[in-house]
């Protein structure tokens, strides 16, 4: 299937600069556009997003717990996170005496880099993507897996037993949940016949959001992605009651801030992927009514694939809204659910999510191979969902018999 590449705002910007600024050679124009796009994503999108995610998390958790959250620094505490960032930058940077200094310094950078690289291929709106790679999802899966390498390096180099335990947990968690996560990601890929995020969104515009076809898969994806990124209730790697602060226990100052930023950037990426893969990305349910692709104004590119700038802004707004809703859902779950035990975590990964995603992938494959109508997928998935809820209405019998150990005679004072 030959498809026209979507016009990109940053490519157009680079080309425009190449034409109008005499010093730039033509061959450099696309690169300059991509660099501008990367800078925009890093400085004007992800950093402010992460900053205000932290504020929103504290507000939301405060409201959940009948508190007010930050409210003193700036109106409604809006300047709390910038103030915290300034404080972290001003703090003393401590490196433990027996730490491996080079790796100790490089590891936060690696984690930070891995968290931010994936954003290069996330489409914020029609045409508002740095580079819509044709292997976009593969790239995201590959880049986000590097995070755990950074975590293990940080933990190993800081020469601390708690950090090491945390790194083991993080690695085990990552190995267990990378499989169901990627199996879940394969389904939108199969349905859209493309790994490119832009193509996946276009498929959803044509045939409806994938959440309508695969609700259970969405929950499986969400769970696996949360576990993959060490988000509460799966934050065993940072369980402060057991292992202090986990892998970043020895880090302070700006290095700790990098870990913190990376964690929130990963959470935002999970939310963005949920919005793109299951809720149509920048597509809004009002689009069939309002027809934003026909709106007047300056346009990117030419021909049928061109995108109006107003449409771009409208789409970006919808994408941000969906992403923020998913982020809030993650925060809400974080405030609701207690931390899982490691055996519960492994059980859920290997006994529930992997079989489910495998069977689901086989079903989707069968639907495509036998050319069945796509509604069958929706019927099967929604049917399974309803059946699960119907079965779960009765409390299941405990599968593990717990025995009370009888007290020895005279061991306890008889009441």
């Amino acid at each position, binding site marked *: 299937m030959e498809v026209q590449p979507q016009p990109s705002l940053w490519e157009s910007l680079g080309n425009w600069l190449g034409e109008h600024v005499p010093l730039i050679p033509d061959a450099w124009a696309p690169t300059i556009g991509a660099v501008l796009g990367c800078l925009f994503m890093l400085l004007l999108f992800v950093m402010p997003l992460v900053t205000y995610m932290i504020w929103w998390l504290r507000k939301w958790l*405060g*409201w*959940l*717990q*009948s*508190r*007010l959250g930050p*409210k003193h620094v700036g109106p409604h505490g809006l300047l709390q996170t910038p103030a915290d960032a300034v404080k972290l930058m001003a703090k003393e940077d401590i490196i433990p005496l027996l730490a491996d200094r080079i790796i100790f310094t490089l590891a936060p950078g690696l984690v930070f880099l891995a968290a931010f690289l994936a954003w290069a291929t996330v489409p914020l709106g029609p045409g508002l993507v740095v580079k819509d790679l044709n292997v976009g999802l593969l790239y995201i899966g590959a880049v986000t897996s590097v995070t755990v390498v950074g975590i293990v390096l940080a933990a190993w180099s800081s020469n601390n037993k708690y950090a090491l335990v945390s790194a083991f947990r993080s690695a085990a968690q990552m190995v267990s949940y990378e499989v169901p996560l990627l199996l879940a990601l394969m389904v939108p890929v199969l349905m859209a016949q493309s790994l490119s995020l832009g193509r996946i969104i276009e498929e959803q515009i044509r045939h409806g959001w994938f959440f309508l076809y695969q609700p259970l898969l969405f*929950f499986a994806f969400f769970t696996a992605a949360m576990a993959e990124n060490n988000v509460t209730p799966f934050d065993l790697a940072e369980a402060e009651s057991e292992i202090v602060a986990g892998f970043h226990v020895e880090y302070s100052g700006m290095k700790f801030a990098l870990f913190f930023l990376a964690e929130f950037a990963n959470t935002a990426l999970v939310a963005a992927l949920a919005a793109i893969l299951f809720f149509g990305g920048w597509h809004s349910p009002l689009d069939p009514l309002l027809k934003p692709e026909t709106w007047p104004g300056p346009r990117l590119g030419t021909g049928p694939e061109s995108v109006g700038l107003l449409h771009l802004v409208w789409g970006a707004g919808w994408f941000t809204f969906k992403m923020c809703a998913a982020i809030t859902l993650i925060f*809400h*779950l974080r*405030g*609701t*659910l207690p931390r899982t035990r490691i055996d519960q975590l492994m059980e859920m990964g290997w*006994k*529930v999510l992997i079989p489910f995603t495998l069977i689901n992938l086989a079903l989707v494959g069968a639907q495509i191979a036998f050319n069945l109508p796509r509604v069958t997928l929706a019927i099967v998935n929604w049917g399974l969902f309803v*059946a*699960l*809820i*119907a*079965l*779960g*209405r*009765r*409390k*299941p*019998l405990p*599968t593990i018999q717990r025995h009370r150990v009888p007290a020895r005679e005279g061991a306890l004072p008889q009441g």
Partner: protein
Amino acid sequence: MSRLITALQEIGYTLLSIWKGVGVTWRNLFRPKQTVSYPYQELVVPPTYRGALNFKEELCIVCELCEKACPVPGTITPKTIEIIFHIGESKKRELDEFYIDYASCINCYLCVEACPVDALVPGASYEIARIDPLAQYDRSRMIFGKQQLAAMPESDRVGSFEHAYEHVPLRRDLQPIPDLVETAGEPQAPAGG
């Protein structure tokens, strides 16, 4: 097969439980918040609240019962309450100084029970440091004399149980005593006895 159904049942039960828990926390979002923005708002404390004492000098007959009832040794005095008096011309005791050591007072109110003339009455104030802001730097400044005790807010903000824990804007009319602030550095201690 039955084990598969049990497993499915458990998954469904988990999903429903999470849904239920999310609902509980969701309802909590819209409840009134318990936080009091303290420097900007203040609690109306319940009537049984044990705050700092109010001392009414004009009622005091210098019987020293409060000092005898006091169960706590002070930080530098034998008792938390310390009374200094002299015999006046009319052969009556006249009060020179009445000290309460708030560094050691436990608000047990045994002195209040002992007082025969209600010169010592329960108070609702919990902002002792506002009387003398330098008390946070010098513990001996937490020994309050007549002057400071007179500056202690009256117990007019004791609410009924219905209105206890209401948030009210803070009264800012309570000012530190100026001449005390000027003589900073001189520890103000009773002369013992």
